[in-house]
C-alpha cells in the first residue's frame, strides 16, 4: 500500500498529552480552560510556519558551557553532550528545525528575575541555548548537568533534573514545548508535572538515555534524547501495488 503526504496535520492525541487540568500540579487549577477545545482541521494558517536560517545561530549558541562564561572560564557542573533525532509521526526526519533549550544550573538555580531558590548562581552560566537540526534531523548541544530543585507546589515538592525544549517543525501546528529528564533520576516518578502525563510509556519517551558511545573520553558524558513532532495526515491509495 502506498501513501501520499497531504498538507493537513494529524490531530493531537489528547489522551497521550497531559490534560489541561492536572490537580496535583497546582498551577494548572486556575490556568486550565474548562470549555472543550474547538476541534478543527488544520488550515494554511497552521500548516505554514516560520523558517529559521543558520544566520540567527551564533557560534556558541549550542554550547551552554561557554556561551555566558567570561573569556577563559566555563560553567560549573558535570559537562554533558545532549543529542538526538527529530522526526515527525510518520518517521520522517525534520531538518533545519530550531530547538531552543533552557535549564537550571548545577546547583538547581535559574538565572531569572522571579527565581527565589537559595542555591547560588553560577556567574559563568546563563542557562539558554539553541541549535538547528541538520539535514537528517539530528541535533546536539553541550551543557552542564542541571540539578533538581524544590518548588512551591506541595509541602516538599522537588523537580527532577530536567532541560526544557522548545521545538519548531515546518508548521505552526507542530509547535511544541516539553522537558527532557535523565535516566535513573529517582525524582521522576514523584513529580506532579511529569505525572500530569497519563501514560507511563509516554513519560518514558521524555527520559534521555545515557549514551556511552557518544560520550567524549576524559571530557563529557552524553545523553540521547529523540523527539517526535506532529505528522501530516496520510492519504492511502489502496489500489496501487506495493512499493510504488
Amino acid at each position: 500500500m502506498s501513501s501520499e503526504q497531504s498538507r493537513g496535520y494529524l490531530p493531537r492525541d489528547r489522551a497521550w498529552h497531559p490534560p489541561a487540568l492536572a490537580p496535583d500540579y497546582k498551577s494548572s487549577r486556575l490556568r486550565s480552560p474548562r470549555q472543550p477545545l474547538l476541534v478543527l482541521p488544520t488550515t494554511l494558517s497552521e500548516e505554514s510556519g516560520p523558517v529559521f536560517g543558520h544566520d540567527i545561530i551564533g557560534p556558541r549558541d549550542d554550547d551552554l558551557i561557554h556561551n555566558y562564561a567570561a573569556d577563559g572560564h566555563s560553567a560549573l557542573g558535570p559537562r554533558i553532550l545532549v543529542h538526538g533525532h527529530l522526526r515527525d509521526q510518520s518517521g520522517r526526519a525534520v531538518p533545519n528545525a530550531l530547538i531552543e533549550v533552557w535549564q537550571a544550573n548545577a546547583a538547581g538555580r535559574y538565572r531569572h528575575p522571579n527565581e527565589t531558590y537559595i542555591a547560588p548562581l553560577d556567574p559563568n552560566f546563563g542557562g539558554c541555548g539553541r541549535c538547528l537540526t541538520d539535514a537528517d534531523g539530528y541535533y546536539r548541544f553541550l551543557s552542564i548537568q542541571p540539578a533538581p530543585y524544590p518548588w512551591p507546589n506541595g509541602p516538599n515538592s522537588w523537580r527532577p533534573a530536567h532541560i526544557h525544549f522548545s521545538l519548531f517543525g515546518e508548521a505552526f501546528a507542530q509547535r511544541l514545548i516539553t522537558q527532557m529528564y535523565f535516566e535513573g533520576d529517582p525524582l521522576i516518578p514523584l513529580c506532579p508535572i511529569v505525572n500530569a502525563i497519563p501514560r507511563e510509556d509516554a513519560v518514558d519517551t521524555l527520559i534521555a538515555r545515557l549514551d556511552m558511545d557518544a560520550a567524549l573520553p576524559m571530557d563529557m558524558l552524553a545523553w540521547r534524547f529523540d523527539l517526535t513532532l506532529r505528522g501530516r495526515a496520510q492519504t492511502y491509495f489502496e489500489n496501487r501495488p506495493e512499493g510504488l
Partner: protein
Amino acid sequence: MADDDTRHESPSQTAGPYVHIGCLPNWSGIAGVYAEDPGSRLINADTRGERVSVTGRIFDGDEAPVLDAVIELWQADAGGLYPSPVETRGVADPNFGGWGRVASAFDSGEFRIDTIRPGRVPYPDGRLQAPHINCWIVARGINVGLQTRIYFADESDANAEDPVLASIEPRARVDTLLAQPDAEGAFRFDIHLQGERETVFFDI
C-alpha cells in the same frame, strides 16, 4: 487507514515560570548570548501594510493577571500571504517574517504586539478566512500550549464569512476572539483562561 507506522508525538510539558530564559533571554536579563530575542520584531520600516498594535492581558480563573506567559504569534502579510515554503499563491512581503513572540510584563501582565493588519487567507475549501493572528500561549500551569486567534472587531463583513468563527457555539463566545478598537490603529485583546468569559481555544 492503517496507523501501524504512526508514532506518538512527544508529550508536551509546561513551559514553566522561567520560559523567558530560553525564549526571550535578553528580556529576562540574560544579555550577551543572543544578539536579539527571537521574534521580538515583527515589522521593520519597509514592511507593507497598516500598522496595528494589540495590547492585552491574560487572566486566570481568579481573574488575576498572568504575569509569566509568553505568546507566540504567526500571521499572514498584508496581502494574505504566509512567508513559508508551503505558501503557493505568491511570494510574501520580504520585509515581514510573520512570526513573533511577546511576554506578559512581570508587574502588570500587559503584553503588546506591534504588527501589521494581516490579509485574508483561504480555508481548505477555498472560502476566505477573516484577517487573524494565530496565537500559541505557554506559561507555568499550562500543560499543552493553548491555540487561539486574534480577529479584529472592525472587520465585521470578513468576520461574518469566516469559517472558523462560524463554527463557534454558543455564538456569544465569538466575541472572545475579537480585538476591540481602542484608538487609531490600537486594539485591546484580553485572554481569559477560565470563567464566564473563557476565550475560545482551538485544537487545530
